[in-house]
């Protein structure tokens, strides 16, 4: 019994060590190319631990808030004072510095040996009051995640929208050329940190997509020298080949309830949309045409699918009932509109819009109409909405390589995610 307090101290010190270390393992650099208008000024003070301040947790929070484009984070070098929790800030002092909000926090030992507790207060320094006060328990190895969770809480309190800093993204990275080319399916935090390999293969991997419960991933793999769709449980690693017909097995999209996968198969001639019941394995055909029908994406209400079809001569977006029937054309602007994806509220559709000079990410109302271009790259593709609908993740060319980037749906905030290791594409955002 005597050993217990010692053990707790070890965990605690280990945690402090990690606070300092976490930034070293960074594989990705967020590079904000364009900020938004009217960003709110905020200062995030270093979190204290046993009276000693530790900066890394506050750096995660600050970097998340800054990256959202909705906040301007005050540089630590300009802090007029360094109050330690539970001392509140000197409100007029921060006001004079042009600040609206200040975050002060600390890290304490948790109730169990291997847990810590982050505690923080968000102050409104203009009104001189507390906006939010929370305690977040966490395990020692979850230090970055607790930073993202605190950033989410602050974001929600000040913008009214759900924060997505504590979510994850999946993507495919390809490196090497010819026989040395290797494809990897990875999952990382939404800021690109902490990448973990889900699978590797010498043959292409494509189109990863999270199940609505966030526990599974569907993707296309050519590991058998032909296209097949797999569903992999991210916790156990167990995976199942769910579709391997002759020809194309591609573009999987989960139904909102997670029971069905829409997909593209060309087993009956040309590529068409089919719906697979994941448990029973029963397959139902949705479109039937000699042209290309592919890239189905479910509307959040589960009633319909947006898809790409070249039945009119050029690729355009169409809407079809999940029950089948005649697809209705949605896009008329430009000669290339593909890979349509619904926003989480179902009111918008993002797509790849090709026109003069390049392929860009466009956004329009789900009913069709004008396409607003959000990006200005030459070769932008694979749009994927953040779960709060505020951002679109996509891939772009950067110095000859594919890289991921994010753009806010008003087009005002852009971020490049620089991930090491060759071409990075086909991203999907976790729920």
């Amino acid at each position, binding site marked *: 019994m005597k050993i217990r307090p010692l053990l707790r101290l070890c965990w605690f010190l280990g945690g402090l060590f990690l606070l300092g270390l976490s930034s070293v393992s960074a594989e990705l650099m967020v590079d904000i190319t364009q900020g938004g208008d009217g960003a709110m000024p905020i200062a995030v003070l270093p979190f204290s631990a046993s009276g000693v301040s530790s900066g890394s947790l506050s750096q995660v929070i600050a970097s998340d808030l800054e990256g959202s484009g909705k906040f301007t984070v005050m540089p630590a070098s300009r802090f007029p004072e360094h109050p330690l929790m539970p001392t509140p800030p000197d409100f007029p002092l921060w006001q004079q510095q042009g600040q609206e909000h200040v975050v002060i926090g600390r890290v304490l030992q948790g109730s169990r040996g291997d847990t810590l507790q982050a505690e923080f207060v968000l102050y409104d320094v203009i009104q001189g009051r507390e906006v939010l006060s929370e305690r977040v328990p966490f395990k020692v190895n979850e230090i970055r995640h607790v930073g993202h969770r605190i950033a989410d809480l602050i974001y929600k309190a000040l913008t009214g929208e759900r924060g997505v800093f504590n979510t994850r993204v999946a993507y495919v990275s*390809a490196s090497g*050329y010819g*026989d040395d*080319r290797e494809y990897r399916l990875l*999952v990382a935090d939404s800021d690109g940190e902490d990448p*973990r*390999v*889900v*699978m*590797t*293969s*010498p*043959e*292409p991997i*494509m*189109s990863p997509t999270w199940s609505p419960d966030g526990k599974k991933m569907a993707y296309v793999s*050519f*590991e058998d*020298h*032909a*296209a097949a769709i797999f569903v992999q449980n*991210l916790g*156990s*690693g*167990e*995976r199942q080949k769910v579709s391997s017909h*002759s*020809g*194309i097995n*591609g*573009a999987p999209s989960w139904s909102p309830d997670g029971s069905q996968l829409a997909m*593209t198969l*060309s087993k009956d001639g*040309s*590529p068409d949309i089919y719906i697979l019941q994941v448990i029973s394995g029963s397959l139902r055909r949705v479109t039937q045409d000699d042209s*290309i029908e*592919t*890239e189905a994406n479910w509307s959040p209400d589960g009633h319909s699918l947006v898809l*790409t079809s070249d039945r009119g001569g*050029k*690729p355009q977006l169409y809407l079809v009932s999940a029950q089948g029937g005649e697809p209705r054309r949605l896009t008329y602007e430009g*000669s*290339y509109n*593909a*890979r349509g994806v619904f926003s989480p509220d179902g009111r918008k559709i993002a797509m*790849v819009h*090709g*026109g*003069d*000079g*390049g*392929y860009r990410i466009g956004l329009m109302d789900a009913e069709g109409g004008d396409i607003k271009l959000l990006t200005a790259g*030459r*070769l932008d*593709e*694979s749009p994927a909405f953040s779960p709060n609908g505020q951002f679109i993740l996509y891939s772009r*060319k950067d110095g*000859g390589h594919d890289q991921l980037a994010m753009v806010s749906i008003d087009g005002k905030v852009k971020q490049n995610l620089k991930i090491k290791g060759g071409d990075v*594409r*086909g991203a999907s955002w976790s729920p």
Partner: protein
Amino acid sequence: MFAAHLGRPELTSEEGMMMQMFKSVLSVLMMLLVLGCSSKGGVNEEGEGGDEAAANREGGRGAKTGQYGYGRGRSGMGGAAGPGSPASQRVIYFEYDRDDVLPEYQSVVTGNAEYLSSHPEATAVLQGHADERGSSEYNIALGERRAMSVARSMRLQGVADRQLQIVSYGEEKPATSGHDESTWQRNRRVEITYPGR
């Protein structure tokens, strides 16, 4: 989290040799393509339309010259032709968003079709590819369409359906890296491969 590692099959020495031959022919082709395109004014970034089609044709002729000038033709090979011979020409290039086999590549299709029809036990994989522009899953569909176009032409020349397998890799396996028209042109292709030979 789980990580699955998949093995890479070994290349046989014959395949290795074929690859060497293919690469040397291809490098000559590439040089000529680059020359052909640069005379037209280099990169064309237009998405679609007449100008680009013209630029492609120009490049296509460059390729044609390369093939016929340096080609390992089928002359006199007759029945002795194995995948080693017609098949030093195993790549067919396509125009943007098109799947029709251009006249200058018809001989590549015919050479391989003749080999297959005279060797009914042989099988070929037609790998369809697209350039990197646009959406990756739509490009899978374009690559398949190109491979099917080649398959159709081969069947008309007596190749049995069961001898042909089609796989589309879309933009996932570029033959060459780069982001300009001459690169894209070398990536819009169907490669004919003979597994197990």
